[in-house]
């Protein structure tokens, strides 16, 4: 028997809610991305490849994705730790700290970029200390990394926090009564439960970092092949009124991001299976 194309849900309101969802999605997501792909299609795969297959573009793409991955990994570890501290401990100023976690979302990225540059430049508070041991932060890849960690920080903390809140004390107590050490409980009981949420946060932080422009541009130095990020190359192409090449680099970023997010999704499915529910 052939399965019907649309399963009629017993819940009312499918038509209306689906209509609104699709309209909103189309207006703000699907149509703009479609326009980008259309622009790329009119340019042709050969043209896109020719634009992307240049040392400078590869260097920028490699830089953007490499630093975004590192930043997301740092945020993965730091974000889980942060969520743990915020949920499990009671200390004065906890609510303030909790609210401060969201600041990177609220602050205009340019403001973030300028303040980070002011702090980490050789004349800045941290930059001058680092300068004494010969470590340059602003205007190097370190600076870009710091900006990317900043913008991605809330994601992991916010996705993991509710999961930690839901973990029953009894689970840990049972583990302890069965003779497990604290570290063993953490590694084999707690972390697997946090894994799916943490991976979601990781994927979000990664996606955010890949597309980040506003804050990075102030701290990067923007030297071709060294500290030039891929979004800047797109802006440069636009400055030359070269819309095709800009779309080509945009599509390349879109494809790589899509592949990465897909991979993360698969890991997520696998990690969920491992803890016993899909």
């Amino acid at each position, binding site marked *: 028997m052939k399965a019907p194309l649309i399963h009629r849900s017993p819940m009312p309101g499918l038509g209306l809610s689906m209509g609104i969802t699709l309209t909103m999605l189309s207006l703000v997501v699907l149509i703009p991305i479609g326009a980008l792909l259309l622009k790329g299609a009119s340019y042709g795969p050969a043209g896109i490849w020719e634009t992307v297959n*240049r*040392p*400078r573009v590869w260097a920028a793409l490699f830089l953007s994705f490499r630093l975004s991955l590192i930043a997301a990994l740092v945020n993965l570890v730091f974000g889980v730790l942060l969520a743990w501290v915020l949920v499990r401990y009671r200390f004065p100023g906890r609510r303030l700290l909790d609210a401060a976690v969201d600041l990177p979302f609220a602050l205009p990225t340019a403001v973030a970029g300028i303040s980070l*540059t*002011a702090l980490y*430049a*050789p*004349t*800045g508070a941290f930059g001058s200390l680092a300068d004494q041991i010969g470590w340059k932060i*602003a*205007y190097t890849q370190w600076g870009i990394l710091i900006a990317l960690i900043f913008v991605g920080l809330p994601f992991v903390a916010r996705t993991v926090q509710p999961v930690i809140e839901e973990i029953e004390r009894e689970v840990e107590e049972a583990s302890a009564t069965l003779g497990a050490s604290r570290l063993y409980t953490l590694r084999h009981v707690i972390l697997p439960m946090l894994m799916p949420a943490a991976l979601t946060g990781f994927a979000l932080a990664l996606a955010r970092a890949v597309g980040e422009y506003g804050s990075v*541009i*102030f701290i990067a*130095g*923007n*030297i*071709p*092949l060294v500290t030039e990020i891929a979004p800047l190359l797109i*802006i*440069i*192409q*636009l*400055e*030359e*009124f*070269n819309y095709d*090449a800009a779309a080509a680099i945009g599509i390349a970023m879109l494809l790589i991001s899509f592949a990465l997010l897909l991979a993360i999704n698969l890991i997520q499915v696998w990690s969920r299976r491992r803890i016993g529910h899909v």
Partner: protein
Amino acid sequence: MHPILTNARTIPAQGPHLTTAALRRLTARPIHRLRGLAAGLALATLGLGSVPGPALAQSLLNVSYDPTRELYREINAAFTAFWTAQGNPAPSLEVSHGGSGSQARAVIDGLSAQVVTLALASDIDRIAAAGRLPADWQSKLPHNSSPYTSTIVFLVREGNPKGIADWGDLVAEGVQVITPNPKTSGGARWNYLAAWAWAEKNGRDPREFVGALYRNVPVLDQGARGSTTTFAQRGIGDVLLAWENEAHLALKEIGEDRFDIVVPSVSILAEPPVALVEANIQTDDQRKLAEAYLAFLYSPEGQAIAFRNFYRAWDSSQAAPEDVARFPALELIDIASLGGWAKVQPEHFGDGGIFDQIYVQP
């Protein structure tokens, strides 16, 4: 035809298409109330559309580039006084600032600027290529449509510790040069071309010289103001290549005791042009206002304001003598002697052009 007026006329025409059945489907409210609402809406739209023409014409949007904020703040105040003194109602003048290239793109994409005052003729050429003003725009106003000019000078740290006197000193080992990215900044293209012109004059291979210069650049900011901040506030670099007006402004704002201006032997005659955007002129009154605004830039009063804001203007008859005396004489090369923007832009700054080849050998 004014777009708002056409709009107002089409709204009532749509009325009959909204059948009662359609209205019932849209809402459960009594239909007569909705009819009233629709009529009210149509009236409101008509009211919006019937704003009298002259009131609209009294607004003017000037789309400019980054370092002209202070200049046009003064120009607008002086022009408003001049225009009202002639018996006209006070105009509403707005200025938008940003990178020259992105400002040009905004106008091409539909930003309704009646006047553009950008950093490079090639940016206005782009707007002309999009059909918003005639291709021969640059011949419509005196001096290549550039009411004021500037040049590129060096800003060095107090006492000039690295002893920088001319372009040749910039490629020395250990000298860090701060200049914005010519790909994203109009001003930076003038910097680059000034260095190129000096090398040509002094028998150096310009390609090699400019390459060596940019290899001494540790930070390529997006625009002129960004570079000024990097040099002045972040303490990066030994010398900033700057618009002459930016260099003087930096001295005025940040302190004369922290930096010195060094004027090289040769530099470029930077001509930031102005133009009327024909396609965005809606009424004859607006045209009159826009034309008067541009003419005011060339008037002795407008020129005096340009001098006061550290631009090299043409007519010093009303300018304060100290504003004029500030500019030392130096050899200025104009863009025409390098082949004009139509040739220079793609050759040097186009995709894979000479600037790109500094970083990536083809």
